């Protein structure tokens, strides 16, 4: 791939060696760096909203609650659905159109019928909300993975530790911060790294929700790479994008690992 990134190539026919020109061009490609920012935003939402939800639900299911097996299955349904199916489903939920005076989209319909017509919105057609909607749907689709891993991690914690904490007079919060979190750090690290890698590379969901995108507001690195390849036939440039993107992902993963190691030592 690195070799191809040093060439100008249309995907077929001869390749022309251009040295580092593709990388130079990439450094000045604002759309590319904006797309990186968009992926970062989606990742941030996933790291917070998605993982907080996953952790909260894992904690709930780790306790002796009724129908916990049922919940486990329910929470794991979104991750096993295809991203295209999820995109189509949410497209219908977020549809901004109307027919015979009735909102077609489920969300707008619910907002309207529940007396909140001022909140009815063109969710995917407005740059202010489109990316957030995608990030939320991505988090909804992905929280089940974190839930399963965190739940598995919680179940490996020795129950005697909780009993010892109770005997020492620790309350729920103290037990959570001093027992649960430290014991869960390795699992949390894996979940965080997988969330970062999965969220930075999201693209099928975007294609199925907003097709080729809303101007450049919903572009992420992978859609830009795709666009360079199949949209504008710049395979060499696409490879340069992929190389830079890969390096960034590896660096981020190492940084998270280092941070986690420091947290463990602390």
């Amino acid at each position, binding site marked *: 791939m690195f070799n191809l990134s040093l060439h100008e190539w*249309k*995907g*077929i*026919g001869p390749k022309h060696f251009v040295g580092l020109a593709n990388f130079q061009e990439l450094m000045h490609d604002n759309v590319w760096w904006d797309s990186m920012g968009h992926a970062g935003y989606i990742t941030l939402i996933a790291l917070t909203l998605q993982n907080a939800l996953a952790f909260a639900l894992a904690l709930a299911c780790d306790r002796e609650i009724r129908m916990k097996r049922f919940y486990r299955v329910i929470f794991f349904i979104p991750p096993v659905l295809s991203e295209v199916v999820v995109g189509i489903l949410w*497209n219908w939920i977020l*549809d*901004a*159109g*109307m*027919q*015979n*005076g009735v909102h*077609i989209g489920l969300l707008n319909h619910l907002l309207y019928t529940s007396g909140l017509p001022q909140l009815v919105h*063109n969710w*995917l*057609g*407005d*740059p202010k909300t*489109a990316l957030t909607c995608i990030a939320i749907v991505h988090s909804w689709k992905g929280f089940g993975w974190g839930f399963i891993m965190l739940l598995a991690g919680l179940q490996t914690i020795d129950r005697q530790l909780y009993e010892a904490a109770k005997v020492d007079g620790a309350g729920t919060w103290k037990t959570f911060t001093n027992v649960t979190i430290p014991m869960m750090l390795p699992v949390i690290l894996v979940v965080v790294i997988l969330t970062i890698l999965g969220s930075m590379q999201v693209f099928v969901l975007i294609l*199925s*929700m*907003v*097709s*080729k*995108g*809303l*101007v*450049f507001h*919903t572009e992420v690195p992978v859609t830009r790479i795709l*666009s360079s*390849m*199949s*949209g*504008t*036939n*710049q395979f060499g440039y696409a490879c340069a994008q992929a190389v830079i993107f890969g390096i960034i992902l590896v660096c981020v993963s190492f940084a998270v690992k280092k941070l986690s190691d420091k947290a463990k030592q602390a």
Partner: protein
Amino acid sequence: MRALVTGLCCLALVFGAGCSKAQKPSHKILVWHWMTDRHETFLKLAEEYKKQTGIEVTVELFAPSDAYSQKIIAAAQANVLPDVYGILDKKSIFADFIKAGLVADLSAAFAADNGAWERSLFEKALAVDRFDYNNIYGIKPGIYGVPIDVTNMQMLYNKKLLAKAGIQNPPKTYDEFIKAVEALKRIGIAPFVSGWGELWLADCFASNYAFNIMGEDKVMATFRGQVPYTDPDWIRVLDIFRDLRDKGAFLDGIVTKGNKYAEQDFALERAAFSFNGSWGVNVYHDMNPNLEYGVMPPPPISNAFHLKIWGGAGSSFVVNAASANKDKAIAFLQWLTAVGQQVVLAKETKNLPANREASSSISPVLEEFAKGMEQSTHPTVWPINEDPLVIEAFDKGIQAIVIGEKTPAQVAADVQKVKVRQTAKGKR
């Protein structure tokens, strides 16, 4: 030692994966296509062909078309292209396939029997697969593909919804169209939908009006870099989108709609007008068989030049020049485009046939589409094509206008910046 063996195995796998199978002539033809709606009919026709000739045709579907295009490029790299396939890309890429020896020159087959095969097909359909003398791609003049149907892009109107708004006849001019938009808005019907999330449909719509406002010569001069996109005529083209937005012509969410969603909206009578291709006839029939609609060209905004619509070969197949079954593949395509098979394809898939004689078998709506073929044009037959990055800037600019983010003048300036950059890059 273990590491060495593992390493060697990995190397063998890596290099082995890139090796193509040596091809031997056989009684089998492999066809790769992307047309989901025609797959069943292709399978039936393949079965019929086997009965008639004893040659087995394996038809494999790879959809959607974007994924198909990538598969073809990957297969070309690995030298594992099938006997018959399609190239869904720009003419320059088609030319690169020919230069790479991956597409057979079919001129001799078309010219045989005093050009009987060539005469049987619509010229507009063949034009897409033809390379003329002095073509800019440096390809030997000839015909390199076989059109299996023709298509064009027009506007469709819902008869029932128009009647509800008191509109008796479909609009013939842009002003009449705006009046229809206002009438529809008054009774709460969304006037217009199209799959502009896919960009190329918006590009096509703009291109229709560019031809209408400034004529083909000026459009081509722009592509050559002789006319800037900041020219008042181009700003007028972009201003149509601003005007339609201001008049409330668009169904909410049009800019992010894929064409399948837009087709669904029109089929389910959520919008009165749509901009789509003739393939939509089949799609609408499947979604809502009772839909009453008609076809009209986009209403012209100017009398200066004729409005041109995009049209030509809808789907074309090429023959792999490296195939050991090249002659059998050509014979199969001749059979597929013969009148009998074209009637079957037209009836079952509701597409305009490429064969002239088969066109008598089409439905009234398709006939309306067929009338538009005379005023059709297509980027693949233009003497020059715009740089893809300029097209992207233009199409994204249209989206920016539709959502009210930029003015036509701002978009024109942005596009011109990209044009200047790409022109400079090309000169380097």
